């Protein structure tokens, strides 16, 4: 089977699962970031009666959690992609 020397080949199903996992996790992290933004903007516009220390606490908590979750998502994605790699160069069929 012809193979591009520098190109890596993957088990399609595992690769697709890795991408799906990354997409879902980034989506969740994005939504948590959005919630942090909504809390901050609600407080800035004066629509909320939440104490300022609570706003700072929850915004920081949500933002930091979201950033950590994105980092975790990327690390998991790299690991999953590595696991999906086809190591043999010949006589290997897709899963």
């Amino acid at each position, binding site marked *: 089977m012809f193979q591009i020397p520098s190109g890596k080949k993957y088990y399609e*199903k595992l690769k*697709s*699962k890795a*991408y*799906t*996992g990354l*997409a*879902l*996790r980034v*989506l*969740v*992290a994005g*939504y*948590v970031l959005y*919630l*942090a933004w*909504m*809390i901050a903007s*609600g*407080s800035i516009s004066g*629509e*909320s*009666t*939440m104490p300022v220390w*609570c*706003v700072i606490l*929850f915004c920081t908590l*949500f933002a930091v*959690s979201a950033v950590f*979750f994105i980092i*975790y998502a990327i*690390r*998991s994605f790299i*690991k*999953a992609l590595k696991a999906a790699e086809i190591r043999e160069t010949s006589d290997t069929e*897709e*899963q």
Partner: protein
Amino acid sequence: MENTQKLLKKYTMTIALVVVFIMFAFFTNGKIFLAQNISNLLLQNAYVLVMACGMLLCILTGGNVDLSVGSTLCLVGAVAAQFMSAGLNPIVTIVLCLGISLLIGIWQGFWIGYVHIPPFICTLAGMFLFRGLGRVILSSKTVNISDKTFLGIFTSYITVPGLDDGGMKWSALIVGVAVAVFLIGYTAFSRVKKAQKGYTMASPFVAFGKIIAISALVIVYAWKLTNYKGIPVMLLWIMLVVLLYAFITSKTAFGRYFYAVGGNEKATKLSGIDTKKVYFVAYCSMSILAGFSGLLVAARIGSVNGDMGMSYEMDAIGSCFIGGASAYGGSGTIPGIVIGALLLGVINQGMSICGLDNNWQYVIKGAVLLLAVIFDVVSNHKTGKA
């Protein structure tokens, strides 16, 4: 002991729903049990229930989601509002709107199913595209819907002359009791049939306990409707969609294809099943349901603007995952997502009745999500996936 653990695991979300309901009943001094609130619980969450049914099919195919449903809902609502403003017949408007939803579904289903564009990318593009189109159609204004026929089709209540003339709408209770009797009768009948064929069955205690609890809930819900305005037409639309999708996913061969594709796509393909068609149908049905939800929401609010349906995709996706659908596809049921949607609905409604500040509502939603995130990280750590 093992059986109890199995039961608890199987009904975790149902128990969570009951606990959350009781918690909000306590915090709202029982206001959540008022007939109007019970009636509104389903009506306010009609769009979630309807869209979650379609989303389940997408998720079943391998954890794929449709991010464009909120925008499709807005676009279809905008088209409906403009058509009726121009004096078009409401029935024709509904048919045309569902046709437009189908076209959107064909568009997305083609790229995802036949060209293999990742669903996340394709529907993300759709999210921006259809939202933009909706705003263009509305000229970035709010358009009111005043057509009584259109509003009546989705938001009226069923009134039986002679039965519902007074303050109490007895037809709702009669229907509720009839449904409860049918459920118990059907369970008994199917158990007898299964016993004759020698199939293994759950114990009568579990089977009848479950169906009697469901029947009791149906009668209580019907009693609340009797005390309010009777059976809302929107409830019938919701039931129609939920029952249809429950039937497709659990009783038809085609419904099983979605589980098969999510379980092992390659094996499904080798079994002679057209997996491309399965993806195509999943996204077509999702768009039709999003469009239908657009009509439901437009009728309920009585107007349409460019922000309608914003973040509704998160509600539909959330309901599916809360209801037990797997993020990697292949598992999930319609009764499960109904529980998930109701749980989200009870949390939202409970917080509104409590009069919680918007910011506190965001904090609670964020806390629930963070718990899910921690669960994901910890469970992957345990299995050594990350």
